[in-house]
């Protein structure tokens, strides 16, 4: 569990636990058996009924503790955004329960707007506003009076380093700058929970650092909870306290990044990149052929450390070495976890 939960949320009554004990700290979100299936698309001129679509959320159960940075990781189409839309009251689940800071969100979806700030993937509502006006208007619409909204606007623009572009309309900015302006709008109004759908998509490293610093500051000062959607493995490993791995609408694992990596045991990943055709005449290389995931000239192998060491020794000498362009040896990443857990998609980003 996150180490920074020590500071309770202001106004919090005595911390309690969920009856089944799934959360060891007061929960921000409690999700039980959440299921959502989009209606199957009707086919015109077809007499047969359309086949029911696969559920976009399939009996999802998870807890997010207060003050935690909780990630939802998975490739495109895994159901991350569908889940987030239910967590923010935008989409009504077919069945299941969502509790947000003690409020039943399935029964009272509109309460979400008063408890959390949501950063969606689209910025069309703000595109034609200037960065400053987007932040100020969003703060006003979160119920702040004019003076407070202006102060929050100035503070968040300063905090995220948006000063030089504050008077430019969002649609004239680069993708990363626009995203940063949307983050600024999301951070106004100091909500106890932030739900951020790929907040750093398209950002340069400086902007990314500014976003994570701002999120950390809110967590340290106010105990803010963050639910973060990402398909970026590196980001997930560095900023998240815990992560739920989603595949085809199901949570296939949920733990700390280290805990998840321990699931795949001690296997390491060895990437071999050949200059041209792999040297299958070499006996050790031919033996590896059926173990490798092949992508063009790249072979990816997941092996026990001693086996990997032997392979490295084999490929760094003789004809194999002559055919080798590059190789990397790495400890398991969340991507390895995802694949080891039976994830089917291959849409995770490693950069």
């Amino acid at each position, binding site marked *: 569990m996150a180490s920074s939960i020590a500071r309770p*949320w202001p*106004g*919090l*009554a*005595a*911390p*309690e*636990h*969920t009856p089944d004990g799934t*959360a060891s700290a*007061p*929960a921000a979100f*409690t999700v039980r058996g959440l299921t959502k299936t989009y209606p199957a698309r009707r086919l015109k001129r077809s007499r047969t009924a359309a086949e029911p679509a696969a559920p976009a959320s399939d009996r999802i159960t998870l807890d997010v503790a207060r003050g935690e940075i909780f990630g939802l990781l998975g490739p495109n189409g895994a159901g991350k955004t569908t889940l987030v*839309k239910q967590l*923010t*009251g*935008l*989409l*009504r689940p077919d069945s299941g329960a969502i*509790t947000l*800071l*003690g*409020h039943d969100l399935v029964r009272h*979806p*509109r*309460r*979400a*707007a*008063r*408890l*959390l*700030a*949501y950063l*969606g*993937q*689209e*910025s*069309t*509502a*703000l595109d*034609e*506003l*200037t960065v400053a*006006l*987007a932040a*100020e*208007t*969003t703060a*006003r*619409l*979160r*119920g702040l*009076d*004019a003076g407070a*909204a202006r102060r929050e606007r100035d503070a968040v623009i300063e905090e995220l380093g948006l000063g030089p572009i504050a008077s430019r*309309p969002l649609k004239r900015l680069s993708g990363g700058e626009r995203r940063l302006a949307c983050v600024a709008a999301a951070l106004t*109004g100091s*909500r*106890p929970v932030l739900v951020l759908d790929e907040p750093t998509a398209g950002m340069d490293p400086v902007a990314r650092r500014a976003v994570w610093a701002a999120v950390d500051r809110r967590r340290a000062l106010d105990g803010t909870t963050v639910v973060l959607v990402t398909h970026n493995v590196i980001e997930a490993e560095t900023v998240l306290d815990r992560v739920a791995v989603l595949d085809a609408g199901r949570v296939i694992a949920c733990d700390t990044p280290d805990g998840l990596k321990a699931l795949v045991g001690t296997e390491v990943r060895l990437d071999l990149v050949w200059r041209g055709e792999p040297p299958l005449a070499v006996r050790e290389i031919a033996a590896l052929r059926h173990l490798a995931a092949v992508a063009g000239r790249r072979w990816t192998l997941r092996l026990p450390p001693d086996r990997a060491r032997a392979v490295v020794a084999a490929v760094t000498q003789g004809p194999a070495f002559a055919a080798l362009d590059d190789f990397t040896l790495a400890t398991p990443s969340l991507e390895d976890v995802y694949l080891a857990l039976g994830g089917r998609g291959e849409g995770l980003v490693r950069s």
Partner: protein
Amino acid sequence: MTAVVPPAPPARLCPSLAAVYRAQLSRARGARIPLLFVATFQSIGIMVLMRGVVDGGDGDEARAVVAGSAVLVVAFVALNLLAQYFGQLRATGGLDHYATLPVPAAAVALGTAAAYASFTVPGVVVTAVCGALLYQLPMGGLWVLLAVVPLAGAALAGLGAALGLLAPRPELATLCGQLGMSAALLLGVLPEARLPEPVRWLRDLLPSTYGVDALATALEPGPDWGSVAADLAVCAGVGVAALALATWAYRRAALR
């Protein structure tokens, strides 16, 4: 049970309406100005064209052309462009931004409609003045635009917003907005007396008609202010209904 955190207070109607209005109005600076020019030039162009077949001076036809062209600017911006804007916003998920803010539905629908109605003011005034000069009509009654623009604006913007929010696809929203504008053009600019009976019924159903009639009456040398007031009252009634429809449509589209 977990401890319950009290939710933040929701945004109140008037301040959030003002915030939406101000934000929407700021969009005029960049994106809207070329379209506002198009709206105005279209109306002035129609008046110049019609000048070839309609005599200037005191006559129902001249008044109908000028009043219809002036209100056409409102139809272009408030009905057509607003339908496109909301259609686009809905299709791209932009409504999620508002739906996850604790803001009353009426504030978003009315603030946006009010901003679009305001966009039309310069174009309507320029068109009406140019028309009065072109057709040698008295300008003493043009102050009635102060009532015609907000009331016709409310009716047409409400309708435009509702079309944009209810259309299942953004292309359909655009199509409906364009058709609405074409109807306002054909049924507004042509003098009522020249229209066949069924088309006159259609004209009576169009919310912009009452704004056109009020303005046309005001352009007479001795206007019948009772008739102007009656037309404006109908316009106001339709405006309230259209804005209520827009608010309902917003709630339906944004808060599933």
